[in-house]
């Protein structure tokens, strides 16, 4: 087992190298020069050249890549072109808010999708099924910036419950943190709910037809007990798997929500860095995000293996 895990981790390395090469090249292909952007419209040629050498941006690309890669291996992610901050601390600082938002979104998603999926499965093809499916699909059928703006208009201005945007760290003020969290979490969670609901519904349908459920019913157990204890507990395997995958996908999906709500997470950081052509930040952020994504996938597979004794990790 351990050997298999190690082999799997080892096979991740070429992927990560590939990702870093693609990121490095792609961001430099985007037209626009970060040094000129930094020094402004009025800067003269001499200052531009000076800053470019200082940042080692005038070296050949291959040299730049290996210099960067070498430093990454020692844990030095370099300094941001815009303002010279240490990139690694910027990234770590941004991961916190994204992680919190992602978890909250997953919770929202589960709160919507599991009951909806169960209702849809147990009352198949009835009005309840259609309504549940419809509600779950709502989140998926709206661009998240639209849903976000609607929530702001409704729950922040019309009925002033939540703040419109922004972030307060939980350490600083837990109550304010929670209030700032709700609207972006709903926005993000609603989009995920559909996939989970569909999965729950389908899996519950499968499971409820299975022999052991028929046995449980024949034994005279209450329907609710049957659904929850025999049905859901066997459905949880694919659901957990799906959640793991969604957690990974969230890392990319938070981008728009973080932008709308000014949530200082890694999605917003990366988008802003792409627009500013802040190469070290983009490269570092994509590397970390991709690494987390593949690690989460691996963890999901492991959990899945642990939950289902019939499956072995390949």
């Amino acid at each position, binding site marked *: 087992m351990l050997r298999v895990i190690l082999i799997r981790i080892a096979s991740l390395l070429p992927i990560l190298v590939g990702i870093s090469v693609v990121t490095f090249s792609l961001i430099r292909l985007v037209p626009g020069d970060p040094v000129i952007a930094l020094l402004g419209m009025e800067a003269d040629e001499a200052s531009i050249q000076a800053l470019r050498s200082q940042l080692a941006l005038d070296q050949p690309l291959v040299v730049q890549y290996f210099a960067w890669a070498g430093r990454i291996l020692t844990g030095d992610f370099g300094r941001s072109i815009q303002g010279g901050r240490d990139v690694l601390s910027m990234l770590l600082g941004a991961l916190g808010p994204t992680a919190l938002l992602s978890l909250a979104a997953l919770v929202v998603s589960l709160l919507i999708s599991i009951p909806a999926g169960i209702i849809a499965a147990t009352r198949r093809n009835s009005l309840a099924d259609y309504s549940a499916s419809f509600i779950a699909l709502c989140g998926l059928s709206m661009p998240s910036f639209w849903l976000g703006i609607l929530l702001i208009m409704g729950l922040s201005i019309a009925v002033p419950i939540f703040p419109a945007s922004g972030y307060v760290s939980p350490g600083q003020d837990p109550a304010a943190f929670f209030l700032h969290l709700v609207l972006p979490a709903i926005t993000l969670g609603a989009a995920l709910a559909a996939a989970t609901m569909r999965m729950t519904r389908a899996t519950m349908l499968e499971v409820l037809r299975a022999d052991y459920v028929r046995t449980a019913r024949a034994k005279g157990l209450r329907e609710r007990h049957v659904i929850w204890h025999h049905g859901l507990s066997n459905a949880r395997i*694919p659901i957990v798997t*799906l959640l793991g995958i969604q957690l990974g996908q969230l890392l990319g999906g938070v981008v728009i929500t973080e932008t709308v709500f000014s949530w200082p997470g890694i999605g917003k950081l990366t*988008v802003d860095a792409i627009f500013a052509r802040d190469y070290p930040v983009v490269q570092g952020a994509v590397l970390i995000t991709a690494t987390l994504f593949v690690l989460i996938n691996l963890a999901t597979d492991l959990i899945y293996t642990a939950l289902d004794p019939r499956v072995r990790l390949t």
Partner: protein
Amino acid sequence: MAAGFDSGTASRIVRRGVGGSMSAVDASAVIVAPQGWRRLLRGLATDPRSAAGLALVGIAIVAALFAPLIAPVDPELPDFVNILAPPSTSHLFGTDELGRDVLARIVYGARASLFVGVLSVAAAAVVGTLIGLVAGYFGRWADALLMRLMDIIFAFPSILLALAITAVLGPSLTNAVLAIAVVNLPVFARLARAQTLVVSRLEFVEAKRALGFGTANILLRTVLPNIQAPLIVQGSLLFASAIITESYLSFLGLGAQPPTPTWGNMLRNAIGFLELAPWLAWFPGAAIFLIVLGCNLLGDGLRDRFDPRD
């Protein structure tokens, strides 16, 4: 974003016989004889959900194809005296911030949105399926190399990758299509590969190989028709997500350039006028909502049709 999930895991679920939704196929069920389209449509029409989906998508297709006939005026014609006018008899859906007729723009917007959806998914499906077929059939080096490439693409946060590609190529509707196609490649590749792995081990494929049929023939005529069902389902769902991704690219300034209307950029521009002219946002918002809903219903319906165990 996309409602699909990792087919690597799916295939493992598949092989052990635990039910799953997306590729709800195990070894016996995957050989679904390609149903006649007519039978398929009839089947879809009977279930109220997929019928609704079919209707919604159908309306959008009609609007896209016949836009010049349906739209009352030129969607790009401004009228600076008449900006932000509410719906009236002369402008059924009102006018936008430059006095353009919103109904006309919605109808033409269907063209752009469908263009994005159909082309990006088709491109991703064709290329991705080919990759999956080759990887699944030949195995070993081809498999390792191709799937590594797909893993690399897949590990990128999708919006960021689409954003970067569009930024490199320049903002336009065509480049948005390309970017979305690239982002969706791995989904099709993995799905096709997982299915191919199962199907290509089956007897009738072995038989064809023994009989000396060429690889291309085997792949395209024998394997492909038997794996196409989940691919079609996936395609319908990714169509919906492509339209939403286009709206995200528009939100960031990278989609179709003005004055070309897409539902995404109409919605994005309308947000600044939510209090002055809320109808500007409701119409494109509803349009996106309905087509995505329709695609999802249609996709679910197709999946139910293809799964014989129901």
